[in-house]
C-alpha cells in the first residue's frame, strides 16, 4: 500500500482508525478496512446510491468521497441505524411493506430515507420520490419503497409527539 494515510474517524458512534491510500474511496475503506459491507458498490461513480452514508449528518455517495476525508468526522452507515438491538422504524417498515426484493439497494435507500426524514418529518409523495431519486432500485419499481417511507414517517411522527408530550 503506497501513500497510506492513517485516518481517525467516528463510524456509527464508535472511534475507528484505518490506514488507506490517499486515492481510496470512503466506500472501499469502509467495506475493506472497517468491515462494513452493508455499504454497497453498484457503480463507483455516484450514479446508484447503493453506497450512501451520512458524513456529519449529510447524505453522500461514499464512492465519491475519499477515505481520508473522513478524518475527524462522523460517518453513519446502515449498520448504525438500529439502536439498542432494535430495528429502526424504517428498517421494520421496509420488511413489513416488502420494500425489498434482492435487497442490494436497501442499505442505500434506508440511509437516504433517514436523512430525508431527519430533515423533513412529513414529506409528501413527490418529496419522497425526489429525495430518493439518487438511489437506483431495479427490482421493485419503487412502489413499495415509497409506501414504506410514508408509513415510517407516520410512525416516527407519532412517536415524536408521544415523547414530546411525556417530556
Amino acid at each position: 500500500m503506497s501513500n497510506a494515510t492513517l485516518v481517525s474517524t467516528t463510524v456509527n458512534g464508535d472511534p475507528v482508525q484505518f490506514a488507506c491510500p490517499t486515492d481510496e474511496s470512503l466506500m472501499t475503506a469502509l467495506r475493506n478496512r472497517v468491515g462494513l459491507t452493508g455499504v454497497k458498490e453498484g457503480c463507483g461513480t455516484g450514479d446508484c446510491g447503493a453506497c450512501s452514508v451520512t458524513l456529519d449528518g449529510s447524505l453522500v455517495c461514499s464512492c465519491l468521497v475519499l477515505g481520508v476525508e473522513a478524518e475527524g468526522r462522523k460517518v453513519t452507515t446502515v449498520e448504525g441505524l438500529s439502536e439498542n438491538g432494535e430495528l429502526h422504524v424504517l428498517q421494520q417498515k421496509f420488511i413489513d411493506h416488502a420494500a425489498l426484493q434482492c435487497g442490494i439497494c436497501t442499505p442505500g435507500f434506508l440511509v437516504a430515507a433517514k436523512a430525508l426524514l431527519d430533515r423533513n418529518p412529513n414529506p409528501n409523495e413527490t418529496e419522497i420520490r425526489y429525495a430518493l431519486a439518487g438511489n437506483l432500485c431495479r427490482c421493485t419499481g419503487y412502489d413499495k419503497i415509497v409506501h414504506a417511507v410514508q408509513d415510517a414517517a407516520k410512525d416516527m411522527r407519532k412517536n415524536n409527539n408521544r415523547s414530546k408530550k411525556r417530556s
Partner: protein
Amino acid sequence: MGHEQKYVDKKYEVVGTRFNRPDGIDKVTGKARYGADASAPGQLVGRVLRSPHAHAQIVKINTAKAEKLPGVKSIVTSADLPDLTGGDQGLADILENCLARGRALYDGHAIAAVAAVDEQTAAKALKLIEVKYKKLPHVTDVDEAMSESAPVIHDRIFTRGVEPKPSKPSNIAARTQMGYGDVDVGFAEADVIIEKTYKTEQTHQGYIEPHACLASVNPDGSAELWVTTQGHFVFRNVCASLLGLDIAKLKVTSSEIGGGFGGKTHVWGEPVALALSRKANRPVKMVMGRDEVFRGTGPTSSTSIDVKMGAKKDGTITAAVAEMRYQGGAFPGNWAMLACMTAFACYDIKNNKSVGWDVVVNRPKVAAYRAPSAPMAAFAVESTIDLLAKEVGISPIDMRLKNVAREGTQAPYGPTYGPIGIEHTLKAVKDHPHMRAKLKKNQGRGVACGFWFNIGGQTCTDLNISVDGTVNLTLGTVDVGGSRSSMAMIAAEELGIPYDQVRANIADTTSLGHNDMTEGSRGTFSSGMATIFAARDAISVLKQRAAQMWGVPEEDVIWENGQAIATGEGHGNLPALTLQEIAAKSGRTGGPIAGHNEVVADGAGMGFASHICDVEVDPETGRSSIVRYTVVQDAGKAINPDYVEGQFQGGATQGIGWALNEEYIYGDDGCLQNPGFLDYRIPVCSDLPFIDTKILEVPNPLHPYGVRGVGETSIVPPLAAVGNAIANATGVRMTHAPMSPPRVLAAIDAQENAG
C-alpha cells in the same frame, strides 16, 4: 415416488397470506452477504483486461512486464484455459466469451486477467500487459450484419434452418419458422391490412449488484466458488467442464444475489477467477466494475421486426406474419426462436406465421433478460393491433377480446392451451376504473398484452424436522425475489404448522442434488412443487412414527392440522400427536425425520398479462412521463401476494425504462459509448407513479396449488402499452424503442411538417 401433481381446489391457511421474509432482517441491517461481501485468508484481487476494439485480431500478448511487478501473483490468457469442450460448440462459445481466443469479438471482450495482492497493484499490472491488435472490420447493427457486404464474424457459421444448406458462411446463425394455416388465404379474406417495420435497441438487465465471485482452487483439484448467480449448480457444472475439474470437488455457494433478471444465468468471470486462483494457488476475489457489467456481460438483443396483419371489418384477425431479426451478440443464440414462440401467443389467429433470424454481431454475448425476446415482438405486434383496431373502428380492448386465445386455442408454437388467463386479464382491464379516468391535455392511454411461458426443470429439495419440531427446508434454487419465504409458507401449509416454525435456506452444491437455474419463472413453480412433495414425504414418516408410538397399524393414521390422528375401530379416541411430540421422540422411534424430493417439474403454466398506461408527452421536448400505470396478470395462485405484486411492479418498471430511455449506444468505431448508469438511464423513483396491480388467479391445472410462474410476463406489455399511449397522446406512431425524447420530438416534427 408417485406424487399427485394435479391441481386440487382447497382452502389455505398460510398460502396466499402475507408474511415477512426470512432474509429481511439481514438485508435491512447490512448483514446479508452478496457476491462482493465474502473474503478468504490470503485472498488476491482479480482484474480483467478488456478489448478496446469492436473486432480485432490479437497478434500478441506480452505479460512479461506485468509479471515482474511486485505483488502480481498470476496472469492468465486463453492459453491457461485450454479447450476441453470436446466438440460441444455451445460450451466452446462460453469459453471463448470468458477469454478471447485469438480474436477480440466486441468492445469489452475479456483478453487477459491478473491476480495481485491489492487493487492498486492489479490495476497497475493491467496497464503493463501489452496487447498487439490488428483491427478487423466490424458490424454492430442487426440489419447490416445480415447484408451481403457485412464482414463475416465467424467463418464456421452456416445458417441453420434453410434449405439447401448455404454454401457460404454468414452472420445469420439460424432461421426459425412457426405458425399454422395459410397466411395468403388469410390476407385475401382481410378487409384491412397493416404492415409496419419496428426497431428496438439493446438494453441491459441492469441489476444493481455487479458480478462478483471468490474463487479458490487447491493443487489437488478441489475447489470452492462463492458467487452471485441465479444457478450455482449450473455454474458448477460449466466451470468444472471448462477447467477440467471433477464436478463433485467444486463446491459452489450462491451468495445473496443483488438482482439477476436472467443476466446471472451465464458465467463470465468465474472460470477466469478459478484459473487465476489455480495458477497463484491462492483465493482470488473478482468484482466487476459497472462499466464492465455493461460492456462485458449479457444484455438483451437489439431487433428489427416486420409485422403484417389483416382483419375483417368485424375485427376478426384473419392473418398475421412477423419477420423478426434478433442479434445475439458475438455468439449465436436462440433469441429469435423465442420471439417466434411468443409473438402471436395471446391470440387465436387462424393463419399465422413467425419467422425468426438469429444473427451475430460485434456486441457482447446476449443473455436472457426477463421473458427474453418477448417484449420486442410484443412491441411490434401490439402496436400493429392498435393500428388495425383504429382502421376497423373498434376499441383496442374489444379488438383484442375479439381475437383472444382461450382454452383449446392452438399456440403458434404447437401445443393447445389448457385454461389460460388472457381473456380474464383483458376483461379486468376493460372494467378497471383506470380505463374510465379522465385524461388531461397532452395525455394518452394505451393498452397492451403479453405472454410468457414458465419452465419447470430439475429440482431437488430436503426437509428436515428438528427434535423441537422446527423445520429446515433446504433448497437448491437461488432465491431471487423472496422464494425462501414462499417455500417456507408452502412447507408450513403442507405440514400444518405455523410459518415461523419453518426456516428455508439455500444449500451449496455439495449439500443437495442438482437444481437448474432460477430462470423461466421456475423458482416458485418447481421448487414449490418439490417442497410440497418433500413435505408430504415427511408426513408419511411422521404418520409411521405416530403409528409406532401408539402401536397401531400405519393405515389407521391420518395427518391433519399439524398432527397425527388415529382413526378406525378401537383406537379412535387416542389423543392426537402433534408434530412436536412426534419429533421429540424421534431418537427412539427410528432416528431423524426428514422428507426429500427430486423432480423434473413439467406442466408449468402459461402467464398472461394486460397493462394500462397513461402518458403525458411534452410537445416541446418530446419527453414522455408515465402518469398512471396498471398491471393485470394471472398468477395461477399467488403464494405470497406481496412478492407477486413486487414482480409485477418491477417488471413493468423495467419495461417502462426500455420503452422510454434505456439503450446501448454504439459509435461508428463499434465501441459502447454509454457504459454507466449516468448515460444508460434506468427509471428512478421520481420518474414513476405508484404502479397499480391486480392479481388474477386462474389455477394452473398441473400444479397442486395451481401456481404459474409470475416473474417475467410483466416486462412484456410495457413497450407497446407506452407506444400506444404516446400514439393516443400525440397522434404519432412510434416504431423505434426506446421512445426517447429526441425520437418522439422528431416524429412530432415530421408529422407537423407533413400536415
